[in-house]
């Protein structure tokens, strides 16, 4: 079944317009709750569940989980203005529509797939996943693409998956089984798995699916790509065991049995019907698009775009009809297949098959664990005979519903966040043993700390740092800095031209960097530059267009190459040496930060989000480390970001409550609690907080102290 995503995407947009098959999240959440409660009853769980969290706690929890930051003041007011009966479901709809939902869950998938901005094609792959989440691309489709893609890094975004492990069959075998099916077989690379069923032959058979894929690197065009060869590199017996015997190519063999193709479980029947109606919609939209677009259609498109802009979407929606037309023109199934690996295409079909229970189990369990704080199978990537699910029926239900929905990520998330287990409070004031029992039965929430990116963005939200909060020129600062300046060696005259000709613009860069660094004045471990995913995808398309040219490039002469290298190296650097000078610089310290979810990822090793648990995404099966460290404490206590977030800017609503004619410290304290902790302060908290504010040299300083404490508090970084 070769299906092309562009087409599905059209169907989804059309479906949204025509009001077809829209699952009711609340009902689905309730169904999930019932299944779990029923299963707990069967498991004879008798502990008393924790209560569901209150409305504001739910708002904070869901905002953090779905859009990766705490709610702002306006969002809290809006939420509280909704009627209590529909608050939670309306909230989920709003959050899932937020462009930040896409950013937040791109990070989830990037962690899972170990996508790295700085690996070959990694940036394009991240942009691809971003688009896939935005369009709610079916998860099976996404998985198939990653497993089977071939081509040039950056031009074929999905190839980053195979290139991320250097197209090494052994590595990819271990990674693919663990990431997509939750099966750990990498131990069996070197020895039969001692306590699981996997043998070395199983491993080699699985690795053989990757055996014909090769990684190539063209050093002159600086491109990396994969291609298929005719011979496999996976041979049996393993190297070192051969002892003179001939090593023979291993035939690919899948690890596990799929559900028999004659059987037709309910969820498969439902999937087929879901896919059929999607197909019908495509046909219909193609048929409609063949007619000339009427004025009404055009107006409708314009209205959609305006609506999107109003919602704050960064990009405009595309015209459904014309996109469908273009999609039909671009569907060249044969070409599509050629660009994939045949072996890996087979593998992709097996891995991502609705009949492969591990595929759906693994993914729903990962999403569940991320949202609920504990997997039904734990660790999430270790499904084995000796490590079964704690709640097999609940896991089956989630998997069945996920498959039946057409592997729709959003509907899975919706179902979970509207269910009881997601909404449970923590088990406070009970014995350790009972707490563990409650958590194991998903009747109490574990304490969860925000992800590093969420913490970063939440500080920015609470501290109004996404936008300027001080007037221009109100924070002028002078710093002295050491900068590097190029000076000529004897007999040389330095000119801008000679610097540029020598490729030696380091001195200039030094200056510019100095100016930029001055803004952070030594705090660059907290800064980040937002990435434009759409632009990356556009570049990928352009690269794909030139792919043919590159592969047919003629071999260059040694002289040509030498000339190119000279140019790249910047020629003769010996003419310059550098001295350091101290200069004074005045600048306006009026900081604005970008979202951590939009930075290149993984971030630099000492960056805030790395210190708070973002991994380098190189190792498989290494979850984020949420344990505290001294470096974390130092960054929070003394960092630029917490400091600036604590200071109250004149453009903030709170400012007028602290200075001027209408000072109202109680209201200011309330605002601080709502903005930072998403809750009202208790009476005694108000009086304590008021005394802190009053204790400052000015009310503004006192409030900065209070906000600094709240931002640094455990209550801020642990979810309610």
């Amino acid at each position, binding site marked *: 079944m070769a299906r092309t995503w562009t087409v599905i995407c059209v169907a989804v947009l059309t479906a949204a317009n025509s009001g077809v098959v829209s699952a009711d999240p609340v009902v689905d959440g309730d169904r999930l709750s019932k299944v779990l409660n029923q299963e707990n009853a069967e498991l004879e769980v008798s502990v008393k569940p924790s209560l569901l969290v209150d409305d504001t706690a739910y708002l904070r929890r869901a905002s953090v989980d779905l859009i990766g930051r705490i709610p702002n003041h306006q969002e809290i007011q809006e939420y509280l203005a909704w009627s209590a009966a529909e608050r939670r479901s309306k909230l989920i709809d709003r959050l899932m529509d937020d462009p930040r939902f896409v950013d937040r869950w791109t990070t989830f998938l990037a962690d899972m797939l170990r996508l790295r901005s700085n690996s070959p094609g990694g940036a394009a792959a991240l942009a691809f996943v971003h688009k896939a989440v935005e369009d709610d691309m079916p998860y099976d489709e996404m998985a198939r693409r990653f497993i089977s893609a071939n081509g040039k890094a950056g031009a074929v975004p999905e190839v980053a998956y195979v290139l991320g492990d*250097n197209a090494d069959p052994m590595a990819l075998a*271990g990674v693919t089984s663990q990431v997509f099916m939750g099966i750990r077989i990498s131990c069996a690379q070197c020895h039969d798995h001692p306590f699981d069923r996997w043998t070395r032959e199983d491993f080699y058979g699985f690795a053989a699916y990757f055996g014909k894929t090769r990684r190539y690197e063209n050093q002159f065009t600086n491109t990396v790509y994969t291609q298929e060869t005719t011979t496999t590199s996976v041979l049996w017996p393993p190297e070192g065991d051969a002892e003179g015997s001939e090593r023979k190519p291993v035939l690919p063999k899948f690890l596990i049995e799929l559900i028999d193709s004659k059987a037709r479980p309910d969820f498969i029947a439902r999937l087929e019907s879901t896919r059929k109606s999607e197909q019908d919609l495509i046909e219909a939209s193609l048929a409609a698009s063949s007619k000339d677009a009427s004025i009404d259609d055009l107006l409708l498109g314009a209205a959609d775009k305006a609506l999107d802009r109003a919602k704050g979407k960064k990009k405009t929606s595309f015209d459904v009809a014309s996109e469908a037309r273009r999609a039909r023109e671009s569907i060249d199934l044969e070409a599509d297949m050629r660009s994939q690996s045949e072996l890996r295409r087979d593998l992709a079909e097996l891995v991502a098959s609705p009949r492969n229970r591990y595929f759906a189990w693994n993914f729903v369990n990962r999403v569940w664990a991320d949202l609920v704080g504990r997997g039904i199978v734990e660790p999430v990537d*270790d499904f084995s005979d000796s490590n079964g699910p704690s709640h097999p029926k609940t896991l089956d239900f989630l998997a069945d519903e996920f498959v039946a929905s057409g592997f729709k990520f959003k509907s899975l998330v919706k179902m979970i966040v509207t269910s009881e287990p997601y909404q449970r409070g*923590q088990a406070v004031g009970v014995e350790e043993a009972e707490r563990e029992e409650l958590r194991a039965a998903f009747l109490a929430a574990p*304490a969860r700390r925000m992800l590093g990116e969420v913490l970063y963005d939440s500080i920015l939200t609470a501290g109004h740092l996404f936008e300027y909060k001080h007037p221009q020129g109100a924070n002028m600062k002078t710093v002295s800095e050491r900068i590097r300046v190029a000076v000529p060696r004897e007999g040389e005259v330095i000119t801008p031209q000679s610097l540029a000709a020598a490729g030696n613009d380091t001195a200039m860069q030094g200056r510019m960097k100095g100016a930029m660094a001055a803004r952070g004045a030594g705090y660059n471990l907290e800064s980040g530059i937002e990435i434009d995913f759409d632009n990356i995808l556009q570049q990928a398309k352009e690269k794909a267009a030139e792919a043919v040219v590159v592969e047919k490039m003629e071999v260059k002469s040694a002289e040509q190459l030498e000339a190119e290298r000279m140019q790249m190296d910047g020629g003769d650097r010996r003419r310059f040496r550098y001295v350091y000078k101290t200069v004074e610089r005045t600048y306006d310290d009026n900081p604005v930060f970008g979202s951590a979810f939009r930075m290149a990822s993984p971030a630099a090793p000492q960056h805030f989000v790395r210190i708070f648990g973002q991994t380098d995404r190189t190792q498989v099966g290494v979850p984020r480390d949420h344990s505290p460290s001294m470096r974390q404490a*130092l960054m929070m206590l*003394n960092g630029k970001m917490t*400091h600036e977030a604590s200071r109250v800017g004149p453009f903030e609503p709170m400012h007028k409550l602290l200075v001027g004619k209408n000072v109202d410290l109680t209201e200011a304290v309330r605002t601080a609690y709502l903005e930072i902790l998403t809750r009202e302060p208790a009476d005694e908290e108000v009086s304590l907080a008021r005394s802190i504010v009053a204790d400052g040299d000015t009310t503004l300083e006192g409030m900065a102290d209070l906000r600094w404490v709240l931002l640094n*508090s455990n*209550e801020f970084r642990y979810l309610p």
Partner: protein
Amino acid sequence: MNGCQDYHVTRRAMMGASAATIMGFSIRDLLAAKGRDHAPTAENVILFWNGGGMTHLDTWDPKPGRPTQGEFEPISTSADGVQISEIFPELSRQMHNVALIRSIAGTQGAHGRATYQLQTSYNQTSNVIHPGFGSVVVHEKDAIGDLPAYVSISGQAPRSSYLGQSCSAYFVGSPGDKDPYLAFPEGISQTRGNKRLETLAKFNGRFSGKTTSRKLEATKTSVNDAVRLMRSPALKAFELDHLPLSQFERYGDTPFGRGCMVAKQLVETGVRFVQVNRGGFDTHRDNFEAMRNHGEVMDPALASLIQDLDESGQLKKTLVVMLSEFGRTPKINKDGGRDHYPGVFSCFMAGGGIQGGQVVGSSDEDGYKPKDRPVQVPDLHATLCHALGIDPEKEVMTPLQRPMKLVDGGSPVMELFG
């Protein structure tokens, strides 16, 4: 339960029972093999990491009169019969403290893989990342005093991987510059900052009843550690402002010179492992020009460091090592450069029980192959373990529950210890 972890169940179960004793010896002592059967000769390490692959021929292993000699002449040193390159005139007077190994037999010729092996002792594999040697040291040896046990200067140290975040290096980007994270933010006085900390402790105390994570206690510890570090007089070890100008003149006021001065202060304050990073050794072109410049920077700094550590007595406890991922080709290419060459290369060690003034092993007359006493890469790590009293065969668990030895085999180069 994952299976792999129980693969070595017998041995580990015994290790776990180390509190038990047999005839008065603890089981751990009886099992302890290498590294624990003698008193350590070193307390701390300064590792100079010269990234890019430093030429051995133009530094520690000159080949006078051979076609591979290049532009530099060898010079005699304070160690009898030991000659080094002319680019190290100051250092030549400290060579009685220094031992050279001239017969490292490397196997990796690409930067990434070679760096990985030299820094971890392991060859790079696809399914596990090994910790850098600094992490291994601080996993086995606690910090003395307030400062972090492991500090990396002017560059990133390798990852701590499965040894955990607490074994990763404390990063100093620009040696001698103040780390803004070690003081209250600009404009926040000590009084105000301390008051904030008190209030924070109060708020966290109130909150701890409302949530259920054991990590809250660890958060408290991390804040306390941070505050202790911020308030520690030992922080001066990161700073150079108090030094007289003459020190800057001796070491050279370069990032490397300042790195050496900070490294010296750090080991004197009890830091276990300091890594000083320096790049620019990948001299495919103009090798001799580049190395002359390196010499100008490295020579005064290294010589002053060894001299100062020696005079204060600290050198007895501190092992100073200089490593690079490989050497460079004896043949000089048409660009006046030398290319990657792992076949044989050298390293530099001083202090911490190392007998100075000697050379271990040699390369052949043109510097192509080890001539005698070839030293394998993991032998270097085993040597450091021996000096520090660390058992290189001790096993730790990876996330996939696979037991890994601290060092990938290797045996200590015992001649170094005299």
